[in-house]
């Protein structure tokens, strides 16, 4: 049993529940014990890091400080989300590199009675831990249901291998760790040319046209290679490609139906876990047909309820102050 400190990140509790359940399930099989950081907070995602470094990194470093306090001998923090991973790693790196900055952050943390020693913890993504600590040998030994016949597009995204402070990945542009892992599960892995391309990030919120094009490229390339599913390892990537696939199709008048799964969901299937335990059925683009190719019955996602129509009753008075509609809401315009 190996112990790790676990930073789940916000999405794991909401949009990426499938990821959370499959991570827990797979880690049990692999004897990975995850000790969740008590009272962790949001990593800040990608929103305001460039606006003011100090509060942004203080917010992130709070998690590191809590983790250090709680570490109990374990010095590795696992973040399953690429954005969380990168933010935590950047906070540690900048505090270490720029001593004055590190002291500023610690001065801020001191207000809450906390302190973080830069370099004390290793921040790692789950893929890296599975690949390097557990190893493919062990993975292979746990496979009871090889994924033979399932064509998978391995998608890593842009944040995981860049800048790769500790040189954990084989290459920044074209790393092969996820490919190797999926092959160990018995899947047929395509040489995905866009494996480290951007999923659009938060451009879905602030510039959907840009995001749609980035999403289209990924889905189209996977379809071009005749992939059955595309595998992601970040909640944001998964959400952009899955939840926005319908809008993207509408925008480009295409009809792609590429299921987007988390790598841990496929690991779980190969390890013989029940699809329900792995969060299948919570995806927007159904994986049911793709998974049935290898004889796995996954639940059909629930029908998305159509956007509620404007109430037919009497008109309501408008709000006192005019609020802007949030751009790019998921319901159909």
């Amino acid at each position, binding site marked *: 049993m190996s112990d790790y400190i676990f930073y789940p990140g916000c999405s794991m509790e909401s949009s990426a529940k499938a990821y959370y359940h499959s991570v827990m399930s797979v880690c049990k099989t692999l004897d990975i014990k995850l000790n969740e950081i008590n009272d962790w907070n949001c990593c800040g995602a990608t929103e305001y890091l460039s606006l003011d470094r100090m509060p942004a990194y203080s917010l992130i470093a709070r998690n590191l400080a809590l983790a250090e306090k709680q570490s109990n001998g374990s010095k590795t923090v696992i973040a399953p989300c690429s954005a969380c991973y990168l933010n935590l790693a950047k906070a540690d790196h900048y505090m270490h590199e720029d001593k004055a900055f590190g002291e500023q952050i610690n001065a801020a943390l001191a207000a809450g009675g906390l302190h973080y020693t830069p370099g004390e913890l290793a921040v790692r993504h789950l893929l890296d831990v599975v690949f390097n600590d557990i190893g493919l040998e062990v993975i292979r030994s746990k496979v009871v249901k090889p994924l033979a016949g399932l064509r998978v597009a391995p998608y890593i995204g842009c944040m995981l291998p860049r800048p790769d402070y500790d040189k954990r990945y084989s*290459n920044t*542009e*074209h790393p*092969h760790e996820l490919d190797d892992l999926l092959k160990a599960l018995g899947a047929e892995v395509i*040489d995905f*040319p*866009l494996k480290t*391309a951007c999923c659009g990030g938060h451009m879905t919120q602030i510039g959907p046209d840009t995001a749609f*094009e980035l999403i289209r*490229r990924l889905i*189209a*390339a996977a379809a*071009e290679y005749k992939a059955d599913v595309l595998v992601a390892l970040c909640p944001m990537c998964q959400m952009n490609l899955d939840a926005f696939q319908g809008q993207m199709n509408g925008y480009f008048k295409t009809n792609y139906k590429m299921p987007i799964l988390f790598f841990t969901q496929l690991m779980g299937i190969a390890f013989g876990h029940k699809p329900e335990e792995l969060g299948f059925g919570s995806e927007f683009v159904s994986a049911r047909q793709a998974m049935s190719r290898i004889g796995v019955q996954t639940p059909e996602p629930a029908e998305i309820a159509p956007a509620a129509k404007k109430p037919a009753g009497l008109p309501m008075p408008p709000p006192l102050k005019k609020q802007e509609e949030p751009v790019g809401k998921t319901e159909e315009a």
Partner: protein
Amino acid sequence: MDENKPKERIGVYVCHCGTNIAGVVDVGEVSTWAGENLKKNGVVIARDYKFMCSSLGQELIQKDIKEQGLTRVVVAACSPHLHEATFRNACKGAGLNPYLCELVSIREQVSWVHTDKIAATEKAKAIISGGVARVEHNEPLEPLRVPIHPATLVVGGGIAGIQAALEIADAGSPVYLVEREPTIGGHMAQFDKTFPTLDCSACILTPKMVQVGNHPNITLLTYSDVEKVEGYVGNFEATIRKHARSINTKDCTGCGICWEKCPKKVVDDVFEAGVGYRKAVYTPFPQAVPKYPVIDRVNCTYFQKGTCKACEKFCPTHAIDFAQEDEILNVKIGNIILATGWQLFDARRIPNYGYGRLANVFTSMEFERLSNAAGPTGGAIVLRDGKTTPKSVAIVHCVGSRDKNYNNYCSAICCMQSLKFAHLVHEKTGATVYNFYIDIRTPAKDYDEFYQRLIEEGTLFVRGKVAEITDAAFNPGEEGKLVVQVEDTLIGKQRRIPVDMVVLSAGIEPRFDSKETAKIFGISCSASGWYLEKHPKLDPVATMTDGVYLAGCVQGPKDIPASVAQGAAAAARILGKIQQKEISLEPIRATINEEQCSGCRICNSLCPFNAILFHEDKMVSEVNPALCQGCGTCIAACPAGAISGTGFSNQQILSQIDGLLFLNISKKEVVA
């Protein structure tokens, strides 16, 4: 006390080296200080001079030796590397034994490495003080003269090695030419055309190969490796392994029936760069020298499975010999030329360029074979399917070169090679050709004219480092193509250019085993792995190991003319040596005091030159002065302190340290 009265009359000469030394060290003060403060150590005169190495500077020393009766000389100037010989000869000219002159470095060790003038001046004083203390114990020595063996070992049968071997052999001296592959010719034999004249590479190379094969003074050892080299300049002995060809060369006529009949086809990743096939018994190409084939035992069906022997059945002269064994040869030689060449950068190391993943991405070496009329496609430039002619071709420069992720250096040949490729594609296919470059470097005779010609031919030049080559289509027109993603730095825009074929002008690298080879010959490599020349400007041919010379790309990336010139230059240097018939060796040697030697034999195995022998009868070790190189390993290792080195005796070293420490430098702040 009488004992403290100096025995020797020492002269100290401090060089300004223009401003090289004088700019940082107060040479006037140093020389005045030495004259006054080192009097008790025997210094009778101390001078400073603008350039001690000039004739006038040397005459100054000679005059003092004669007029002042100097018995020892200390020159404080540059590194002994540069001018030790100059000043020793000057002393010799004035009748003083050259080994009584000591050169101490206040340039490389002081002025070039310090900026604090006061501290540097103090350090210069300390170093001179050490030199003065040491020189008192120097002994007059006579150089050893040994005969020089007239034969030369040339390692590597590419164009540089071929040129060197022919120059020496034509001058009448014997040469052993050792080549690892079954034939000589090297990379040049693989090329199609040579830039900038576009003459056929094989047509200009093969006559030289034939000359080597027929030359009475050249012993050609192909399919062979040098395993060990012992000895010293003038008297080396090399152990060479001739791998079993499994062909009896006395009977073989080179008729080719064996490889016609051989049923086993293998990908030829050496000569055909992986785009062609050969048989398990083969000669790499028709003009191979020697003409005899070899059986590749790893791939031969008989050697792997025990049956077949098709070649043996059909050989008209019964020349196949499956039982042949490796042969070990010991040859005596006087000098060595290393011309072991280069290897292509492995483009798979840049996965975003797609080589090895995307079928129609080729390396420069693969392209050479495609374009070569004797190559796998008979000279047709086609895609990996073997038949489709590309309509558009991208040539990417600087693949693995000028890139801090791979190799920092410029591979020197890729620009011209890429231009040549562009021309050949135009000529043979009429395709649109893009050259993606960072800078175009065409700085030799007729090279830039070739570049101008290519521009006129209509090659499209895009200035920018290619980010990615991908088969992911984003835009209409990109489907089914390879897309080159690049920032065009001349228009300041990202571009995506779809093409049918990509040629990666991969850089050139030291051979994979260059470090081990360097060890065999006792020479050193630069950080990039290229072999180090004695001086980068003034002696790019010799190495720091006497008698070992360099030719061709083994010393650094270069094109054919430069390799040929270096091969010839190395040959000329060796011929000069051979002509002298004997060679004088530095008399810096270790000697063992028999009475102190306990016979433990620790030194025997440590000696890198195998110069120490053991007398079983007396139970003591002895150093062979002709083999000893004076490296000092045994001296440091001897537990009994029984070994001392002439020129580096314990007394000399300890006195020098005393001298260095004698100066009370703590009074002034010294920043190292």
